[in-house]
């Protein structure tokens, strides 16, 4: 199964998050996570929920040129939180892929005309 690569460019005030489907089938604009004050993941979650439809799991990496992950506890906490969210996402994709496979077989049995 192809995965979506999520790249995080970490800055002091923001994290730029870009998405790569690796097969050119989808193109998603990047999301900018403002980390100056409170952190709002709503926009990111919206992207992830769209990925559910194409049933692709994600791989992720953090590019931290200023070594902020080690120096800022806030940014590190954000990174850890993001990782947890991605892992949950992948686990959900795994669950629904397993269930979906079973359902598709069943549906095919009920829809003989689709096989014609």
């Amino acid at each position: 199964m192809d995965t979506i690569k999520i790249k995080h460019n970490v800055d002091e005030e923001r994290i730029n998050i870009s998405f790569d489907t690796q097969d050119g089938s989808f193109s998603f604009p990047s999301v900018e996570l403002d980390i100056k004050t409170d952190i709002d993941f709503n926009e990111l979650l919206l992207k992830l929920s769209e990925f559910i439809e194409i049933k692709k799991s994600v791989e992720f990496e953090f590019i931290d040129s200023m070594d902020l992950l080690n120096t800022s506890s806030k940014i590190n906490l954000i990174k850890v939180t993001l990782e947890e969210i991605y892992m949950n996402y992948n686990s959900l994709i795994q669950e629904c892929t397993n269930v979906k496979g079973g359902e598709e077989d069943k549906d095919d049995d009920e829809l003989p005309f689709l096989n014609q």
Partner: protein
Amino acid sequence: MGYSDWFKVDLHIHTDYSKKTKTNDYQGNFDVDVLKQKLIDNNVKLFSMTDHNIINVDAYKAYVSNCKEGDPKLLIGCEFDIEVPESNKTITYHSVIIFENESIEDVELISKKIEELYTRKNSVITDRKITIDELYELFNSYNFFFIPHAGNTKSILDPYKGYDLKLCQQMVLLMPSAFEKVKESVRQHYNEGFDLLKTYDFQEKDDIPYINFSDNHNCNKYPCTNKDGDDHQFYCIKGQPTFESIRFAFIDPKSRIKKYSDVEVLQRSDNFIHSMQFHNHSIIEDQTIHFSPNLNVIIGGRSSGKSLLFNILGYKIGNVKNELLTKYKLDVSGLKIKSFLDIDFKDSISFNLHDVIYINQGDIVNYFEKNSLVDLIRESGKNDDYKTALDFFKVEKSNLNQLIETLVELYSELIDNLNSNFSLYNKDIESIFDDSYFFKPIDQITDKEISFSNSSIILETLLDNIEKFRNNENFNLDADELALTNKFAELVKYKKADFSTLQSLYHNRVELINRSNEILAKKNASLSLKSREKESSNHRLASLKSNVMSLFNILNRLQKHSEIIESYQYNFEKSIKISSEVDVVLELENFENVKDKILEGFVLTEKHSLYQTLILLASNKIKIKNLPDNSADNLKKKLSTQLKPIVEYFDKPIEYLKYAEENTSKNNSPGYNSEKYLETILKNGNAKIIFIDQPEDNLGNRFITDNLIDIIRDLKFQKQIFLVTHNPSIVVYGDAENIIMCTNIEKKITYEQFVLEDRVHQKEICDVLDGGHYIFDQRSRKYNIKKLLQS
């Protein structure tokens, strides 16, 4: 059967004596026995042998001497050549003269008079003529009918044409006469001519008698009309085969003279009531009374058992409105009844509700007092329309209840909202602006569970119904239709699968958000105290915003709904067309305003709109009367009490008759309404049998003479009618076929059947009915003779 029934009559039959006075007039050999057998075969009950200007006394003697009971009855008659010398024309017209007399002595006497007249006039036997004056003089002491030809050849009009046709018409009108040999197609023409001479009162009455006889000239070919052997269409008259019945027929031809073909139709009696058998009853004499399929009137003195018979009949046909058990408390289980379709008597006859109109004494006025026209509607066959109209009011009632229910729900929602927290505390403001941070929760996506549930139901129902549709025995799907159905089923299954994917995706999204929120909540919990306080403050701010939005939303809806109720009117009207002239209208009038009625339930110091009042109520600025608090439940109770009269009003809309624009039973007298009610019910009812007990009690005399009698005369040939009455006009002008005379002698009631054409019965009828003599006399004078003579 004892009532007036139809019988065939033929008062114009020749014998071979006509050959003596007219050359070659009679064909074949006359044999009175052959004629008699032919009359019996054709069921002729009353006849006459009418030769030209002569009487065949031998034939009369031969018939009378062998006459047995039940044989056709013979009246003496002769066909005269009548000349009109004043007209200066030599042509004559033929007129059949029928005498009341029946005995052989009278035949001989009348014949002798005729022969003596022509001897005196020195007439040649083949050229006998008589003037109308000579005829009067000759038979001055006799009762006779004058039945001239009025069409065809030898018409009474011929000698009068160009001389004085008016004189001719006047003469015919004044005599007890009928016209013979007038074609159906020219009747109207005759009627119009005679109408010109009638007084105003009678101009609209179509009561010129026309009757055709066989004019048979060959007994072997009877009933052929003439020498050439044309078929004869028999005429019938109503009553007993007597001279008096003919008199009645000529007085009231519309009711008493009909072609046999029309009578045949009338004699299809349906399941009308045929007879009733009284046997071993405590207060009623043993007897069997028969009922005419037409008009039966029940008459008698006070307490003679008229209404009792009316109610016994109602009871025996199972009519719910009869008052036998409640009013008379009489056991009639031993009495038997029979319909025209029954062979034997039985305990009762069943009729459908709509087959019978049953109007008790005083009922008509009660209809208006009770404000219910449901009987009229039912008996006019408009039950379905009535039900539809009532359903309309039920729906409107339900709509009103729904409006009130929604108002209470909105009020309840308002109270709940007002109890919400609308404060933004300073501590929260400070916390919100603090430098610390927290992870904002992920917004939930729109809840789709209800939408998904509805879609699932649609899909399952569709699949189920497609299967039923495919296998239904009544649809008979052909191959193409079946293929189309299968394709549709496949489409639905495809959509079901598609829908399943959509649901799955949605649930995954929700799951992702939930899991993410759990992660964020855990992270927030690990943050500093200030961060956690900031998170809580933000949450309270969001809650405040939500409360405010929710309050605005409810206020907006309450305001709109209050406006709907404030402008609510219940002026509803539904019409049920009973006839082209009369509608029954079901109506609600907006007698009390709903808003005002609601506001009356509150303690108010000044007047406000309903919306403002409810706001004041919800914020406890005003109070609900007589209730401890302003809860939604108490508001509901109060509104229910306040609006009860209005809501209940919807169950019983006002019913009234609409005669024309601006002319309704609401603005007319009870008497007038009763008349219109009866007229409508009688003219439009689908019932086969009509019962009315003493209609004259509620009706004006003018209505009875001008309307009711005409309606009855028309209806009685379509429906069986039973009328209890004291009114001689209804009996005589209504031309009752069957008069049931009730007598009560020493608490023993007797029912006897009378007929109008019987002279003995006439006397007894006159004795019982007030003004009966006068009415009989008036009826005999068809026209205002004095006025006619002056014209």
